[in-house]
């Protein structure tokens, strides 16, 4: 057990951090369209050139490093499907150049990155398919901070021999949980800053106990999600993956309501950054649900119920 970064992880995160500070972040997301952004191909290119999209390959023990990179990406509000590449593709023996989207076989409707994806990873009950769309997937107007496409009538074929559907689904859970953690920490951090600066009744609103307790609970919830997601990435355990996603989903409800609440009207403005992270959480939570109710998956993994 070691809860601190080793020197390799530190070096990777420092380099990723430098890249993200230049080419990602809320300002970049505003440029891309804010809560209605385009896909950041430029960022993907830079990440790939620097080798950050391959940290998980080929050894599964490196998935923890991949999760750490993904957390940083998500914390910088990257408009990128790198999460799928970092944590899901290594389980599949496939070669895809550009962005991928991940959906389940029964999916019909909006899906993150579908309109920008070179390929869709389609998770079924006991098989996984790689579908390369033969015609462009239409965009969906969405204002939840992600580029979204409309997935209907998935074409047949593309079954990947021997691809373990359960493992792929489990890694998808780890990826979504990790992305939620990055976004939640972003929202929590700017809220802590806001309530420390904003004064009413001659005192910082962050000195009111109601606000303090509300944020303290948020912080406990996010910390729990973070460590479970990292543990799941390290061990590859399906039950920890389900727990990580459950914790992240539950935490995201608290974060969504409370960070907005403690911002007052300020949180409503599009110029301010809070909504960029909080709205994303709604999309991520719906995606989490599409892989099966997280809490039910957790109960299933532990007791077979």
């Amino acid at each position, binding site marked *: 057990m070691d809860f601190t970064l080793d020197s390799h992880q530190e070096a990777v995160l420092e380099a990723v951090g430098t890249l993200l500070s230049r080419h990602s972040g809320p300002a970049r997301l505003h440029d891309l369209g804010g809560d209605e952004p385009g896909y950041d191909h430029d960022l993907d290119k830079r990440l790939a050139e620097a080798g950050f999209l391959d940290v998980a390959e080929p050894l599964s023990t490196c998935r923890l490093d991949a999760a750490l990179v993904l957390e940083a990406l998500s914390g910088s509000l990257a408009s990128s499907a790198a999460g799928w590449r970092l944590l899901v593709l290594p389980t599949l023996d496939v070669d895809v150049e550009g962005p991928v989207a991940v959906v389940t076989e029964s999916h019909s409707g909006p899906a993150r990155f579908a309109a920008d994806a070179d390929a869709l990873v389609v998770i079924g009950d006991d098989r996984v398919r790689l579908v390369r769309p033969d015609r462009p997937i239409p965009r969906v107007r969405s204002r939840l901070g992600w580029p979204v496409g409309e997935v209907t009538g998935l074409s047949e074929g593309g079954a990947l021999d021997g691809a373990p559907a359960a493992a792929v689904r489990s890694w998808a859970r780890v990826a979504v949980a990790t992305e939620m953690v990055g976004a939640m920490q972003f929202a929590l951090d700017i809220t802590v800053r806001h309530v420390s600066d904003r004064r009413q009744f001659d*005192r910082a609103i962050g000195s009111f106990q109601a606000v303090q307790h509300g944020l303290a609970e948020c912080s406990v919830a996010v910390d729990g999600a973070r460590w479970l997601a990292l543990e799941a990435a390290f061990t590859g355990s399906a039950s920890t993956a389900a727990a990580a996603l459950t*914790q992240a989903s*539950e935490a995201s409800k608290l974060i969504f309501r409370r960070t907005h609440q403690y911002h007052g009207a300020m949180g409503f403005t599009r110029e301010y950054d809070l909504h960029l992270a909080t709205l994303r959480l709604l999309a991520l939570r719906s995606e989490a649900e599409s892989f099966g*109710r997280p809490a*039910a998956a957790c*109960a299933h993994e532990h007791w077979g119920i």
Partner: protein
Amino acid sequence: MEFDWTEEDLSYRSELQDFLAEELPGRWEGATAVLGSADNAEYSRRFAGLLAEKGWLTPHWPTEWGGTAATPWMLAVLGEELWSRGEPRGPQYMNVNWIGPSIMAHGTPEQCQRYLPPIAAGDVIWCQGFSEPEAGTDLASLRTRAVLDGDDYVVNGSKIWTSYGDIADHCYLLVRTDAQAERHRGISVLLMAMDSPGLVVRPIPGMVGEHSFTELFLTDVRVPVANRLGPENEGWSVVREALSFERVGAPRWARAAYVLDETVRGALEQGRSIDPVAVEAVGVAKTACEAARMLCYRVIDERARDLPPSPHANVARVAMVQAERLVADACAALEGNEIMRYGSDSDLQMRKSLAAGVAAGTYEVQLNLVSRRHLRLPKN
């Protein structure tokens, strides 16, 4: 960063599990029902003695006092295994985890000689005399007075909510020795024999299992000055340090996870159907136990590195209370109207989850500490 157990920790755990499987076969009586009761405390004398023989009662103590200088991770494994079996050490849990270490840190050689060997042997029961009718969360407002008279302190006042007061041999007692000083400055720790003349112990029936509290009435109780732990009027820092030995305190998440597991298995064995609402509650509760586990591990990792106590301990404690509560909800959802049956899992867990947020530092106090020390939110 990595989350593997060492070979050493793994084999320690499996050795412990084998031992517990033998000593606490099946569903041990005391596991869920009576932590804190007189029966449980008596049981602990036998059980802690067995642990002591194995070197597992005080493994983290220095060898000088019968320990084996075990690592914080091994101590965590021990705590987890015992708590997930209902804590058969009973009240002796606090002896070994903070009362003993506090005596080691501040005791005179005579005090160490007198008090430590019985703790290490597992046949002594201590109680903790902190709370008073007017001093709960605001502990530093305590008023039980100790006045020097020759070689003794003469103690007057009362303590309340004292667990095990009716069966304990000694009390780790907080008293006020300087009524004039600033309130944190005038407090001292006394190690008081529970058979001292002038001490009256009155049981207070409790609603958590068979747990009974007591009230201590002290009228001119004479405690030798030689029984004062640490310098006079420095008791506040002595006790704060003592409680920080534990950092996260008891691994309550392990017990909660055990209760949840037992309840789910019970339902499955009886062929009861588990509806989707209960499945959801069970998944959420299991998750809360898992999150609390990782947040505790983060603290143990800090201790293993010899880092000073950090607010991560408060984060972990909040998470453990939440886990206890969510497990109570899940048991209730699983068992339905079984909760009406006294002693059912859902009945017991409901009671325990109530205590979790109050005993040993309330939930709100932990949140205060998380917001000030972890989030660094401003003070008024």
